[in-house]
């Protein structure tokens, strides 16, 4: 499968919310510049897992983690890791589009400004490039000063993708990025994601089997906090090894 060393390497990851164990010793390699999809029923731990990849779970007080997650061979949970630098490297797009109540321009420029870029022409350039990469430049270029909350949900989500790209991440985490969107917007985002994998390592949680089979290179199937099966997407969907995988997929697919 993957010959070169993986972008992200997860080893025996266990996670608790208080007394409740949500993840039971996960091992997973996430390859560079590919799309890896996480599928599974609600509550299976896929969203929890994706949030541990950029340490968003740190925000939950009762959350406790064991095991290691290595990004380019460095443990992201090591006390030497600067969380904010990590999140710059590993961007995230959420289920609900969550643009800030600011102008489109300020939304995109927020991240670069956060990381110290103040030069106006440099910011202009980043904003334009990010919006182009997120395939929304043509739709918004004439009104960058409009409030980002005033545009459609599908456009908002692409603004959020552009916003994530603007800080120059290497990995892009997407937590059910299209579940709140209409089919046309969903198609646009899928197209965009397929394009983005040429430059970024993408990890995507989805409950939509067609979406996973359409866009991803690899798929991991989660159940009750375990990874039941992981491998090439085509193989998972056509010839799964585990019966749980087959049951789940055949129940939702088609």
């Amino acid at each position, binding site marked *: 499968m993957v010959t070169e060393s993986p972008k992200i390497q997860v080893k025996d990851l266990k996670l608790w919310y208080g007394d409740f164990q949500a993840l039971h010793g996960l091992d997973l390699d996430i390859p560079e510049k590919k799309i890896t999809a996480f599928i599974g029923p609600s509550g299976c731990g896929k969203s929890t897992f994706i949030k541990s990849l*950029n340490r*968003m779970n740190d*925000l939950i007080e009762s959350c406790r983690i064991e095991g290691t997650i290595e990004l380019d061979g460095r443990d992201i949970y090591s006390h030497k890791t600067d*969380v*904010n*630098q*990590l*999140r*710059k490297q590993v*961007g*995230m797009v*959420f289920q*609900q589009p*969550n*643009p*800030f*109540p*600011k102008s489109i321009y300020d939304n995109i420029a*927020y*991240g670069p400004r*956060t*990381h110290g870029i103040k030069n106006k022409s440099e910011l202009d350039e980043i904003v334009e490039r990010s919006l182009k990469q997120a395939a929304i430049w043509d739709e918004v270029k004439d009104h960058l000063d409009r409030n980002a909350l005033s545009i459609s949900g599908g456009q908002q989500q692409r603004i*959020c993708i552009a*916003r*994530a790209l603007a*800080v120059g991440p290497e990995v892009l985490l997407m937590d059910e990025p299209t579940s709140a969107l209409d089919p046309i917007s969903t198609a646009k985002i899928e197209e965009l994601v397929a394009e983005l994998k040429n430059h970024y390592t993408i990890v995507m949680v989805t409950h939509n089997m067609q979406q996973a089979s359409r866009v991803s290179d690899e798929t991991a199937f989660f159940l009750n906090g375990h990874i039941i099966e992981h491998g090439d997407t085509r193989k998972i969907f056509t010839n799964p090894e585990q019966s749980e995988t087959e049951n789940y997929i055949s129940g939702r697919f088609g």
Partner: protein
Amino acid sequence: MKNTKESVMKGIFFLSACFSIIALLLIVIFIFANGVPFMFEYGFFKFIFGMEWAPTNTPATYGIFPMIIGSLYVTAGAAVVGVPIGVLTAVFMAEFCPPILYKVLKPAVNLMAAIPSIVYGFFALRVFTPLIRDTFGGNGYSVMTASVLLGIMILPTVIGLSESALRAVPRTYYTGSVALGATHERSIFKVLLPAAKSGIISSVILGIGRAIGETMAVVLIAGNQAIVPDSLLSGVRTLTTNIVIEMAYATGEHREALIATAVVLFGFILIINSIFLYFKNREAK
């Protein structure tokens, strides 16, 4: 039988609801009817912009400009002292305070709002007046003393409303910012606070309303000279204290002049209140 009871009670409820409208009308009518005619008899501009308040002179002069300026000075001073501290304390309450501490501090803010103004005034009289006299000179009864005291007195108003405004901001704004690698502090100051702007502004306006209407605390420490103060250490008389000081012995025209002072104060409050409602409604949207 049952229906009569239902409709009688409905009538009683309706009358109760009308009570506050009637009360407000009565207040407006009695204050305005007793104050406005005087304003025009004496001369509206002479009254508002008159620099001299000398009710015992013959002929008496009733210029309330010094008091208008006095009210504006101490209110602005209160805002300068109270708003930054209040808003930052609200940030502390909403985003920095550990839950255990919060259980103590939240009632403490309510307690702060509940302490009678006379207690605040007396405290300031015993503590701030000598402190300001010894540190900055003057006699301690001054614009500065009143500003500091009013700044403290508006804290609970500013803190309470600003905190709710901050808590009403969708949490996704915060997570969105943190996910881009922004710190807790940056996320709060660059995303949450701007998003809570309307609510915070309305908390400030409400605080300003409190400050301009405060009477008994100010009368003890402001010096109460009816002249436009020329420095932070000069004594000052506000619209409210003008009324409370002289009402005890005022008669005739003098009393009407004090009621007219209340009309002006009322006007300020109505303006402030409309601005407050404007921002409150904007927040609701």
